[in-house]
């Protein structure tokens, strides 16, 4: 199990996280997989739909709107997701997973991340500390959904 990224893709994830700070950023990882070994061809920045709270609430309501917002939650618009995925499939690329940022929070998956995760996908998390990109980690949901397993991130 591993995920390979190019330096420029990591840099684009860093820039996206810094640009969107103090809000969470999110994006799609496209590429090819050979079993559990993934190689990213593109990191595609997407919009955090939590910034459009009415539409986001229609799709996946927040549990505690008084304490949750785009600063600590992200949601990808399935319309945008489907469009990018369809276009990627025409180029022979698959969706390998997604990235998102944790503003002023460690690059460790939360319970909320785990509750919403899908198997097999790589979940790359970027910590953005006071506006600056810091640690990047990658995770895959365990088979029984009980935890995220750390995934080696190779450059």
């Amino acid at each position, binding site marked *: 199990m591993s995920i390979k990224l190019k330096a420029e893709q990591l840099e684009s994830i860093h820039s996206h996280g810094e640009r969107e700070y103090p809000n969470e950023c999110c994006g799609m990882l496209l590429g090819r997989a050979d079993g559990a070994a993934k190689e990213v061809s593109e990191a595609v920045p997407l919009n955090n739909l939590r910034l459009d709270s009415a539409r986001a609430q229609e*799709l996946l309501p927040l549990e505690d709107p008084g304490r*949750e917002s785009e600063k600590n939650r992200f*949601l990808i618009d399935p319309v945008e997701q489907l469009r990018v*995925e369809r276009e990627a499939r025409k180029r022979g690329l698959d969706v390998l997973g997604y990235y998102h940022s944790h503003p002023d929070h460690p690059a460790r*998956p*939360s*319970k909320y991340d785990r509750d*919403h995760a*899908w198997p097999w996908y790589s*979940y790359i998390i970027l910590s953005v500390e006071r506006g600056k990109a810091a640690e990047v980690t990658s995770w895959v949901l365990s088979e029984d959904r009980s935890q995220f397993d750390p995934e080696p991130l190779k450059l």
Partner: protein
Amino acid sequence: MPVKVVIPTPLRQYTGKSDSVEVEAKTVGEALAGLTSRFSDLRKHLYNEEGKLRSFVNVYVNDEDIRFLQKDQTPLAETDVISIVPSIAGGSTTCCICS
């Protein structure tokens, strides 16, 4: 009539690695039932214990979300393509005490 169901990458391990499956169905509900009867491991990822589609699963017929059509009663035409689109959400915790 036969319709194509596009399978997202995390669920292809349950469909013999196929990225799309053809099923005979007149409605979205029939199509998903046909899919899960053929590939029973898909069921727990698509449906909750009450047999309802999980809120983390978006289903599109061509470019339209079935939530805004007739949900699982949405009728299908022969060239329709059903896409299963995993809801992608997450975020950091709201307080540092939480796990």
